[in-house]
């Protein structure tokens, strides 16, 4: 299989703190790649380097053969990378339906278009796509509610829908089940499995081992900004260094 995302020698320092230390990572097309590691290991920082929020000090990030460094967040998204944030980022003042329509417009009409003379209601293509995705994540009934009033779990779901509606090539998920109840977590796993059928390449940052081992094809373990182990979920479970650095620490 081809490599979709190729990360080579990425370093990032904040002040004196080395948040990323020579990170190398290859994400295969169509795979679910989990990144695990203790709090503060640099997982979110790594994702920030993929979406244009941070620029690494050194190293390269290649996506489908093109560099993601030095281009703007909207350009990275237009290239096919969508991201779910650790704290849900949605349009809280807008309805769920509008929240999903905006990414759809970004996909169909591009990064900028003065379509001020069109009526949103006339864009049947966008309506249908947005409705379909809300059905998929189970939020269709709430489509006319303001998204600010949703529960945290539902906000995550909505954010996921906003990413999925764009049919991204690569989907980045930063702790998609953090702060969720066991029931909500299981719902999210089911949902992610369902999405899995679309064949979107995914990077999942996760704390919850249950989530990682039920979804991932491959796992990278990050500790103090460095990838200390990599392999299939079963290999990682048995790895002594991982036990020590991570699993042992948080799951006694």
């Amino acid at each position, binding site marked *: 299989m081809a490599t979709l995302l190729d990360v080579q020698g990425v370093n990032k320092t904040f002040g004196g703190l080395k948040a990323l230390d020579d990170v190398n990572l290859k994400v295969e097309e169509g795979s679910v790649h989990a990144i695990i590691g203790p709090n503060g290991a640099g997982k979110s920082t790594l994702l920030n380097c993929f979406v244009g929020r941070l620029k690494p000090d050194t190293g390269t990030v290649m996506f489908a053969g093109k560099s993601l460094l030095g281009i*703007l967040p909207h350009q990275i998204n237009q290239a096919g990378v969508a*991201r779910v944030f650790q704290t849900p980022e949605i349009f809280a003042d807008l309805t769920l339906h*509008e929240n999903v329509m*905006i990414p759809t417009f970004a996909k169909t009409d591009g990064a900028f278009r003065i*379509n001020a003379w069109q009526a949103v209601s006339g864009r049947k293509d966008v309506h249908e796509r947005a409705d379909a995705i809300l059905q998929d994540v189970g939020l269709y009934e709430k489509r006319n509610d303001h998204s600010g009033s949703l529960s945290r779990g539902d906000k995550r779901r909505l954010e996921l829908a906003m990413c999925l509606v764009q049919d991204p090539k690569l989907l980045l998920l930063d702790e998609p089940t953090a702060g969720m109840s066991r029931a909500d977590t299981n719902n999210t796993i089911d949902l992610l499995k369902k999405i899995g059928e679309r064949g979107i390449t995914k990077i999942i940052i996760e704390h919850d081992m249950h989530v990682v081992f039920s979804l991932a094809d491959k796992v990278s373990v990050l500790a103090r900004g460095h990838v200390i182990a990599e392999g299939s979920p079963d290999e990682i479970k048995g790895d002594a260094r991982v036990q020590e650095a991570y699993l042992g620490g948080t799951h006694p």
Partner: protein
Amino acid sequence: MLNLARKDLLLLAGFIIAVAAGPVIMTPLGLDYPDILQKFAIFGIFAIGFNILFGLTGYLSFGHAAFLGVGSYTAVWSFKLFSMNPLPAIIFSVILAGLFSALIGFVSLRRSGIYFSILTLAFAQMSYNLAYSVLTPITNGETGLQLEQADPRWLDTAVFGLDYGAALPSSSLFGVSMTGYPGFYFCAALLVICFYISIRIFRSPFGMVLKAVSSNQNRLNYTGINTRPYTLTAFIISGMYAGLAGGLLAVTDPLAGAERMQWTASGEVVLMTILGGTGTLLGPVLGAGIIKGAEAKLSQYNDSILTGFYDFLPETLQHAMVSISGLFVGEGWHLTLGAAFMLVVIFLPGGVMEGVRRIGRLFSKRKRGSGDAASQPAE
């Protein structure tokens, strides 16, 4: 029809009727003379445009009077050089204000929040000072730009062979003078068109993205939208609205002065929009009407009128009441405006339109309540 949904079509129809019947509606308030009606329409346009920027994107400009001023100066120059016809005048006003706002918007929109507001304020004050001093050859400085008998009016004289004689001409649309009621209906027609355009923008994908800018600009960028050109376009559109309003001020009264660009004028359109209801279609027009109407009414009052009003009181009390209420009228009408604005922001943060919605809800609840009572008498 007109590519509007049913409810917007009704809104537009209602708006047209209300504007056309403006003179009748304003009669009970004693505001049924052309001068003030023209002001309602013109400042309504100004506020509708301002709301496209502030109401949708949340970017609060404190410098929109600069574009109003540019519009006025341009229109007067169009009268002087080309023709007393208002059409070329307002077309030039809109174009020049658009160019000017592109420049100011391009720089100011590099920042957001309070820094954006300060930048626009600084630019507007700069424009005001330039108009007042350095640019005197164009603006005629302190005196203000006025028509003169010796103006070339090239299109009028050379092409149409019009001769205005010894009197200073007034703007006229193919022979109809733009003073009095014709002037009002000219402005009113443009107000309706501007309102229609604003509805279309609000209901478009473009407008939806602008709303998302005020909600979460960060998410928008990670969603693949380049927000900067969106905000700049909104800024230019609202600048063009302001330019049109400024042009119309000159059409109904052909002179232009620097004070039109002062920060108080920029602040006024902010007040109009917030008072009426930021981000609503109708609110800014209502806000403009309320402020211009209150200005016209309250600034008329003076001590002698007040003394007459409190005639029924004993003399000492009468004096006291006159001096207290005297603070709030005449020159002091701004005090009333400030107090009213404070009350609205505290108790009705959504402006007059939120008040209208609350009353509407109250009625619909009562209706539903009585319906429930009738259908479920057992409870």
